[in-house]
C-alpha cells in the first residue's frame, strides 16, 4: 500500500465524521493510480453538480 495513501488516511481519521472524507480520498487515490491527475480531474468534474446539469 502506498505510504502517501496510508498517511493521508491516518490524518483524515483524526477528524470527526471522517468516513465520507476517507472514502472520497480513497476514490481520489484510486483514480490517481489509474490515470494520474487527469483521472482525478475527471472524478472531481463528475462530483461537481451545477444547477441545470442533466436537465
Amino acid at each position, binding site marked *: 500500500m502506498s505510504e502517501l495513501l496510508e498517511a493521508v488516511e491516518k490524518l483524515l481519521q483524526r477528524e470527526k465524521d471522517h468516513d465520507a472524507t476517507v472514502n472520497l480520498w480513497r476514490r*481520489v487515490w484510486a483514480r490517481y493510480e489509474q490515470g494520474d491527475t487527469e483521472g482525478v480531474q475527471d472524478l472531481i468534474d463528475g462530483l461537481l453538480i451545477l444547477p441545470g446539469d442533466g436537465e
Partner: protein
Amino acid sequence: MKPDEKWRLEAISIRSFRGVAGEQSLDFGGRSALLYGNNGVGKSTIALALQWTLFGKFPSGVLPNIGFKDFLAPVGGTKGASSGEVSFGRAGQTFSIRRDEAAGTFTVKIGSKALEDEEAEKQRETVLGIDMETFVRTVLLHQSRVRGLMLDEVKDRNHAIDMLLGVEAAQDLHNVLKVKPFLDAAIEWRGSAKSAQENHRAQGDLLKRQYEHAVSQARDSGFQNKDLNWTALSAHYEKLVEAVHSLANRHEVPAAKLSAPVSPTEAHAQRFTVKVSRELNQIRSKAQSQVRLVQEKSRVQRMQGLLGEWDQKVNDRDEAQKLVSGAEAGLPSSGSPEKLLEDATTKIKKQEELLANLGLTYKLLTDARAALAVQRDAKCPVCGSVDVSHLDRDLESRIGSLSSGELVEGQKLLGTLKQYGNELKIKLDQLAQLKQGRVLVQNQLTRLSEQIAKLLEVHVISESKVRQRLLEGTKNSTAVCEGLEKSVESLASEIEEIATKATNLEGSLLTVILKREEISRHEKDGEKILHEHAGSEKKAESMEGLGSRIERIRIALLEAKDHLASDRLKRARPRSLELYERLVRHPKFSSFDITTKPRAKKVDYTFEVSVEGNPSTAREAKLVLSDGQITATAVGIFVGLAESAAHGLDMLFIDDPTQNLDQGAKEAMAKLMVEIAGRKQIVISTHDEEFVSYLREYGFDKKASVFHIESWNGNPKIVSGSKSP
C-alpha cells in the same frame, strides 16, 4: 528481512518496446551488472521496460501514462504490441512477472502458482513488498529525476526534490483538488433557488393585479360579488341559452337549444361564445320580420320600377298615335287614299295606251312620207306626169304637229301622273308602319298592365287607374317596411344585448374565475418551489460538504507530504551526508541539509550546504554547488533513501550516475558502486568510458555481468555479455 530473503533481478526479456523493435533478453543471474554504450543505443529502454513490466506505468509527471502507446512503441514498430518479462530469484525460488500489452494481461508466477490481473498485482506487492512509488524512490534512479535539481526555477527544483523523495503525488493531487468550484456551485444552487422564489413572488404579484383588474371589469359589466364563481357563471350561461332559444322562437327561426359550457375553461367558454354568435347570426338573417322586410322592400322597388316603366310606355304609345295622326293628315282629304291610288294607277295606264297609239300614228306618217318622197319625181308611164306635192305638205304638217305637240304633252302628263302615284304609295306605306308601331306599343302597355295587376294582386286594372294604383301600392308597402324595420331594429338590439352578455361572461366573469384558479395553482407551485428550494439547499450543502472534504484532503496531503518527506530525509540523512563527503569532496562546505518548508498551499524545501557544526555558514546549494556536485549529492541522497527503505528487493538500478562529474568524483562514484555491489545487486547504465574504466579498475566487472551495447539498428547490439563466475 535477511539479504538472502530478498529478491534479485534474474533476467529481463523485452519485445517491441521503445528501443527494442524485436526481442532482447538480458540474463543478470541475480548479479550486479554494467550496461554501457554510447548515447541512443537503448540503455534506458531496459530501465523503462523493468518499470513498465512491474507496474504498467511510469512516475506521474515524468512520462505519459495516458495514451502512451505511442511512447511504448518501438521506432518503426507496431503500436500496442509491447511485452516484457522480468524474473527475480531468491534462495532457489523464482518469481516471474509478465506484462503483454497486445493481450492486455498481467501475469505473475511463483513456483507452480500463476495469477493474473488484480490478483497478480496483489501478489506482486505481497511478494516484493513494494509499490511503484517506493520502487522509483528506492530502487530505480532515473537521470531525469536528478536533472531537475540543477534547474534555475525554485519551483522546478522543489518538484525535483519531491520526485527524489517520492512525494510528488501529494503536491500533484493538492494542485488538482480545488475547493472553489464546489463553493461556487453551492452559491449557484442557492442563487438559483432564490431566483426561482423571486420569480414566483413577482408572478404572484402580477396574477393578483390581473385578478383585481378582472374583478373591476366584471363589476363594470354589471356583475356582482355573488356572480364571481362558477355556479353563478353556469347559471348565467343557462339563462343565455334560454334567451337565445326564446329569441329564435319569437322570430320563427327553427333552432336547436345550445349547450352551456360544462366547466370553467377558456376553451369551453370560447367555443360557447362562438356558437352563440353563430346562432345569433342565423336568427338575424332568418328572422321572419327580416325576411318580410326584404321582400316588402323588393316589392316597393318593383312597384317604383313598374311605375316608371308604365309612364314611359304610355308616353311611347301617345307618341305613336301622334305620328299616325300626322301621317294621315298628309294624305288627300277627298276619298280614301287607297281609292285615290287606284284611280291614279288607271289614269297612268290609259295615258300610256294613248301615247302608244300616238306613237304608232307618228310612225305611220313618217313611213308614208318616206314612201312619198320616192314617188315625188316619177312620171306616170301612162300620162307621163304625177303631182303629189299637196299630199307631201299635209304629211309634213301632221308629223310636225305630232312631234312638237300632242306627243310631248302626253308624255308630260304621264310623268305627272306617275309622280303623284309614287308619292301617294310612299305615304300609305309609312302610315301602315306607324300604325303597326302603335299596335306594338299598345300591346306592351297591355302586358305591363297585366303584370301590375298581378303584382297588386287584382284581376284587371283599367289603364286610367294603373298609375294611381301603383302609387297607392308603393305607399302601403313603404308603410309596411317602416313597421318591419322597427321590428328588425328591435331584434338587432336584442341580439346585441345577448352577444354582449356572452362576451362579458367569457371576457369578465370567466376571466375572474380563471385568474382565481391560476392564483390557486400558483400557490401550489409555490409549495413545489419551496420543495425545490429545499432540494437546491441540499445540493448546496452537498457541494459545500464536498468542498469541505476536499479541503481536508488538501490539508492532509500537505501534512502527509511534509511528514513523509521529513521522515525520509531524516532516515536517509546519515548515509547521504557520508556519501556527500565522499562524492562531492567540497573544500569548504562539508555538510548539506534538505528541510521541508510548509506553506499555505504547498510544501517547499530549503536545500543548503554549510560548514559542519556552523549553521551560520549555510548557503543555498544551487548557488554554491556545481552541476556535477549536485548530481553526486543526489546520488548520495538516493542511496541513503534506498538503504533506509524496507521492501523485498535487494537491488538498485542507477541510470547514468556520473553526469557532469569530474574525474575525481567519477572515481569516488566507481568506488561506491563497487562497494554497493559487494552487498547488493546494483545495475548501472552509463555511456561514460572513464567511469567504466574506474569500475573495472576497482573490480566491478569481477562482481558483475558486463553488457557492452556497441550500436543500435532498431535493436541494441550487445557485443559482450559476460557473467563472471
